[in-house]
C-alpha cells in the first residue's frame, strides 16, 4: 500500500510542476501588466514602466522561461510567491485569504460528501419508498441548478427573511461580524452562522451528486451473496449493511471525490464572490481585472495543490478500503 501511495505521490508531484508552469505561462501570456501601468494617469515614462515591471518580475520583454526561473527560485528557496502589481508581497494576501477559502472548501465538501453517502445509502435501503422518491426528486432539481444560482437563491431568501422579520435572521455577507465583542463562544457562533449559507450552497450540490451515485453502488451491493452470508452468520441487518455493505459501496465513490473537488473549487469561487467573502476566488477575479500575474499564479498554485491533495486523499481512502489495491 505504501509503495502504491508513493508512486501516486511522485506522479502528482510531476503533475504539479507541469501544471504550475503551464498556468504561469498562460497567465503571463494572457494578462497585460504593461497596459495596466501605461493606462495610469498621468502616464508614466516608458523606461520607468519597464523598470517597475522588471522589479516585479513580470516584464513581458523577459522570456517567460527566465521569469519562471526567478519565480520558482523564490518559491522553492524562500517560500516567496513574488510581489503583487501594487508592490506588496503576494504572501501577505495569500496568508490572509487561504483560511477563508479553506474553511468554506473543507466544511462544504466534507458535509456534502457525508450527507450524500448517507442519503444515497439510506435511499437504496428504502428503495421506492417515499423517502427514496423524495430524495431522488430533490437531488435531480439540485443537480440542475448551477452553484452560483443556488447561492443567489439562498441569499435572496435570507434578504426576504430579513425584510419579513425586520432584522437579519441569517447573515449573508462576509464571514464575521465586524467589531464583534465577546468571548470565544460568541465568535465561534458568529463564524458558524456566517458559514451557514455559503456552506449550504456548496454542500447541497455535493449531496445531490454523491447521493445519486451512492444509491446506485449501494443497490448493487444490497443484492450480493456476501451480505446475505453476513446476515446468515448472525450479524444484525444494520450491522451487516454498515460493515459489509456500505464499505464496499463506498469504494467506487472514492475516485469521484477527487474529481468532484474540481467542481467544488469552482463553486467556492462563485460562492465567495456572491456572499462577499474575501477568499481566493474573489482575489482571483480581482487580480485578473488588475492584470496581476503573480497573484493569479498564486491562486492557480493553490488550486492545483488542493486538487492534487484531494486526489491523493481519495487514493489513500481507496487503498484503505479496497484490499486489492494494497499489494
Amino acid at each position: 500500500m505504501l509503495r502504491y501511495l508513493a508512486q501516486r505521490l511522485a506522479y502528482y508531484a510531476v503533475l504539479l510542476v507541469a501544471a504550475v508552469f503551464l498556468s504561469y505561462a498562460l497567465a503571463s501570456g494572457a494578462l497585460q501588466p504593461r497596459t495596466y501601468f501605461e493606462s495610469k494617469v498621468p502616464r508614466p515614462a516608458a523606461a520607468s514602466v519597464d523598470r517597475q515591471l522588471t522589479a516585479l518580475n513580470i516584464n513581458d520583454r523577459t522570456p517567460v522561461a527566465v521569469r519562471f526561473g526567478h519565480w520558482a527560485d523564490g518559491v522553492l528557496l524562500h517560500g516567496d510567491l513574488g510581489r503583487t502589481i501594487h508592490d506588496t508581497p503576494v504572501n501577505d494576501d495569500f496568508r490572509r485569504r487561504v483560511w477563508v477559502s479553506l474553511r468554506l472548501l473543507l466544511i462544504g465538501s466534507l458535509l456534502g460528501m457525508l450527507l450524500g453517502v448517507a442519503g444515497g445509502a439510506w435511499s437504496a435501503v428504502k428503495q421506492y419508498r417515499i423517502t427514496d422518491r423524495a430524495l431522488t426528486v430533490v437531488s435531480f432539481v439540485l443537480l440542475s441548478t448551477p452553484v452560483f444560482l443556488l447561492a443567489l437563491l439562498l441569499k435572496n431568501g435570507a434578504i426576504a427573511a430579513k425584510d419579513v422579520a425586520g432584522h437579519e435572521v441569517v447573515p449573508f455577507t462576509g464571514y464575521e461580524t465586524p467589531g464583534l465583542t465577546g468571548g470565544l463562544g460568541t465568535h465561534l457562533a458568529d463564524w458558524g452562522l456566517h458559514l451557514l449559507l455559503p456552506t449550504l450552497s456548496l454542500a447541497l450540490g455535493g449531496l445531490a451528486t454523491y447521493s445519486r451515485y451512492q444509491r446506485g453502488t449501494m443497490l448493487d451491493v444490497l443484492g450480493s451473496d456476501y451480505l446475505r452470508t453476513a446476515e446468515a452468520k448472525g450479524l444484525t441487518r444494520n450491522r451487516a449493511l454498515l460493515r459489509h455493505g456500505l464499505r464496499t459501496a463506498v469504494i467506487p465513490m472514492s475516485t469521484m471525490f477527487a474529481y468532484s473537488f474540481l467542481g467544488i473549487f469552482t463553486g467556492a469561487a462563485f460562492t465567495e464572490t456572491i456572499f462577499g467573502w474575501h477568499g481566493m476566488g474573489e482575489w482571483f477575479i480581482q487580480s485578473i481585472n488588475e492584470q496581476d500575474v503573480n497573484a493569479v499564479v498564486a491562486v492557480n498554485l493553490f488550486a492545483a495543490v488542493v486538487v492534487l491533495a484531494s486526489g491523493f486523499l481519495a487514493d489513500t481512502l481507496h487503498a484503505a478500503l479496497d484490499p486489492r489495491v494494497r499489494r
Partner: protein
Amino acid sequence: MTDVPESLTAPAPAPVAARRPPGPPGRGRLVLGRLLGARWAVAGAVTVLLLFVLAFGGPYLTPWDYAAPDYTALRQPPSAAHWFGTNGIGQDVFAQTLRGLQKSLVIGLLVALFSTALAALVGACAGYFGGWTDRLLMFLVDLMLVLPSFLVITMVSPQLKGSGWIAFVALLALFNWMITARVVRSMTISLASREFVRAAQFMGVRPLRIILRHILPNTASFLITDATIAVGGAVMSETALSYFGFGVRAPDVSLGTLLAAGTSEAPVFPWLFYFAAGLLVLFVLAVNLIGDGLRDALDPTAEAARPARRPRRARPAARPALPAGAPEASGPRRPGPTTPRSNRSSS
C-alpha cells in the same frame, strides 16, 4: 413524441427491426420502448422540445424587440403588454429572456457536440495506439484536470473580447472533454482485442478508419448518453461564466448575463431574475432527465421488459458517469463496468 427518442437511438438498424414483427425485437425498438416506458425521460424530451419552440418561435409572438426600450414602461411588473415585465430602461423581459434562452441552448448544444467529438477521438486514439501515445494523452488529460477549467477560461477569456461567442464555445469545449475521454479510452482498450477489430487489422484497414468505423460506433450508447448530460453541464458553465462577465458579452445576451443584470434588483423586482432562473433550471433538469432515461434504456445489462416495480436484485445500478476505469481506481488495463456489449457493427 416519437421524434426525439428516435433521433437519439442512432446506432440501431431500425428498418431491419421493423421488418420482423415476430421474434425478438430489434435493438432500436427495444431502446425506444424502454425510453417511452420511462415517463420522466419522455417528460424531459417534451420539455426540451417545448423550450426550443419557445426560444425560437416565441419572439414572433411579441411585438417587442429584445433591445428596443419602451420608455412608457420602466420596471413594470408582468402585464398583458409586457408578459414578463420590463427592466430599468424599459426593455421587454420576455423578449430578452427568449433571446438569452436561444443563445444558451445553442451554446450548450455546440459545446456538448464538440467536446464529445474531441473526447471520443482522443480517448479512442489513446486506447487504440497504447504505448507512448496513450501515456502522453493521459498525462495531458491529468494536467488539464489539475487546473480547474474555470481558472483557465477566466484567464484567457479577456483576450477573446473581440471574437464573440463562438470563441467562447470553443473555449468551453476545449476544457470539457477530459473525463469522457478517459472512459472512451478504457472502452477502446477492451474493444481493440475483439475479433472484428483484429479482422479489420489483418485486412489492412488503416488505424484511423478502424477507430471511426469499428470502435467509436461500439461506444455510441455511452457517447450519446454522455453528450446529453454534457448539454446540461455546458449550459451551467456558460451561465456561470457569463454571470461573472467572463463569457457571453454585451451585444450578445444569454441567461447568464440576464441573471447578472437582474441579481441586484431581484428582491424588489423579482421578474427581472426569476423568469431567467426558472427557465435555466427547467432546461437543465429536462436534459438530465433525458440523459438518465437514455442511460437506463441503452444499458445492455438491463432486462428486456422491466416491471414497474422491480425486485431489489434486478435493478442495475445507475452507472456512474466516471466508471471505475477512472485513473487510480482500477489497475492498468481493466475495463470499467462500461464494457460495451457486442460486435454489432462489425459487419
